């Protein structure tokens, strides 16, 4: 337990110093969700209407809450995939990966545990940014309930995504020379299949099959329940929570089993 706490503490210290030394990047990170939201909502309302939006979706939803939920989850998913999966590549580029591998902790544990504080801090900070907008659109009482659904989605959704992203870490560990980052195009592809801004139900059937295997799909679906007019049904929330917990077990077990193989192969091949 003490070892895990040490890793989490090191993650917190790393982030505190990163924030202190990279204020411009931090400000840009905070501005991005509003800019993404502004882009989609601005263009949407200029060219169309919320009535057409509800007709196209086939649900009585508030477009602003719908896209706030989508934007927050999209930012969170991108963060996890880059910072857990892509971190191996970054460590490889700066020559620090061999040191992380020979450290007493398993690399999967280092990647995941040192990342959790950053995820919780940045995601909750981004959600806090949207509180005034949610209260304005939904009212305070409904707003608190809907923010609660989003917090639940962001917290539970993180668990399977950690394992899912660790699988990319394994791929980066065993591959040799990197010319470009696979994640740069895999990330938007995963978000597209997960129904980031466009509901999965409207995608072609083959794309829906891929969507159901991705943990991000359920995180987005759960967060989006908050956009339904009135209160979302508890049964739906519990159902999605169950799927996310099941996926968390599956992806984390798979990642935990394969990361050791990845480490051994990387050491054997000298692919570091």
């Amino acid at each position, binding site marked *: 337990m003490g070892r895990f706490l040490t890793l989490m503490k090191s993650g917190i210290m790393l982030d505190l110093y*990163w924030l202190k030394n990279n204020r411009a990047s931090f400000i*840009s990170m905070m501005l991005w969700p509003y800019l993404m939201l502004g*882009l*989609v909502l601005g*263009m*949407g309302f200029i060219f*169309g209407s919320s009535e057409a939006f509800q007709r196209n979706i086939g649900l009585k939803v508030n477009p602003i809450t719908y896209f706030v939920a989508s934007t927050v989850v999209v930012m969170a998913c991108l963060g996890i995939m880059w910072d857990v999966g892509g971190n191996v590549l970054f460590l490889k580029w700066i020559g620090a990966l061999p040191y992380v591998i020979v450290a007493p902790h398993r690399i999967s544990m280092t990647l995941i545990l040192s990342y959790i504080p950053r995820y919780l801090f940045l995601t909750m900070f981004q959600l806090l940014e949207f509180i005034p907008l949610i209260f304005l659109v939904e009212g305070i009482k409904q707003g608190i309930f809907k923010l609660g659904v989003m917090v639940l989605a962001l917290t539970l959704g993180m668990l399977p995504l950690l394992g899912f992203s660790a699988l990319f870490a394994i791929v980066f560990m065993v591959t040799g020379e990197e010319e470009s980052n696979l994640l740069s195009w895999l990330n938007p592809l995963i978000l597209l299949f997960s129904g980031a801004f466009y509901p999965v139900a409207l995608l072609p059937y083959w794309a829906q099959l891929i969507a159901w295997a991705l943990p991000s799909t359920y995180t987005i679906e759960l967060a989006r329940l908050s956009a339904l007019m009135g209160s979302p049904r508890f049964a739906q929330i519990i159902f999605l929570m169950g799927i996310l917990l099941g996926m968390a077990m599956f992806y984390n077990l798979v990642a935990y089993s394969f990361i050791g193989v990845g480490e051994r192969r990387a050491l054997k091949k000298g692919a570091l």
Partner: protein
Amino acid sequence: MSKWRAIVWLHFIRLWRLRLSFLSFVLTEVLWILVFILGVLLFIPQELMPQMCKVAFWIIVGWTIISQCSMLIGGWVSYFTAIGMVEEHLLRGVSPFKVVIGRLIPSTIVLTCTLLFMSMLMGEMFGVSMFMLNEPWMLILGLIFMAIQGVAYGVTLASISMRTSIPHSFLDILNFAVMGLLVVPLEGLPEALRLFIVFIPYVAPMQLMKRGISSSFMMRPELIVSCITITSVMILISIWQTKKTERWIRRHGVKGVGFM
């Protein structure tokens, strides 16, 4: 002349050797455009979809030109500086900004491939050709002005990055802000406000592009005046800024671009 030939050669060689990276750029760009455009199209009634889909596509094209110029030209400076190439070029009497301008080659190729791929994809998805235009030459004129303004902006960003160490990811935010201006319908604005907005970079070229798509968008002489004036001013600013930064670097040395 031989310096320019070497720069052009360098960028073609890089494009060939890092072809997978450039393919990845194209694919990434297409996917991000698709993620956003699908979200926007949810607001559009089915009966207006063919027309609006085309307008939304070309607006995103305009924005892609701006962001690509900032990312592939302005953003490349951090890499160029990190590997110590600024000093190397200065010592050999070659302006590092000339090398940076050479990034126009990969950015034009990436952009052209992205747009062709994206238009095919959108055409298949929504059954509408993105190239069925009202006045094609007007769209081309808008695209040319947009690209020149974008390059001037990218080069200016590159030189600011070298002096201030602000990474391009922060500067890229300006592109999102500009996006808001690109979608503003000029037709419904009061005369004075419209004149003011038209003289903001990128707005007039975008309006020319919109007119090229459909006759429902207005065309006024001040749009051409704005395109010529703003483009010239942006080019002059980029030349002045790069010369100033080069003098500054020779005196103070290169400042690293911040962590991204």
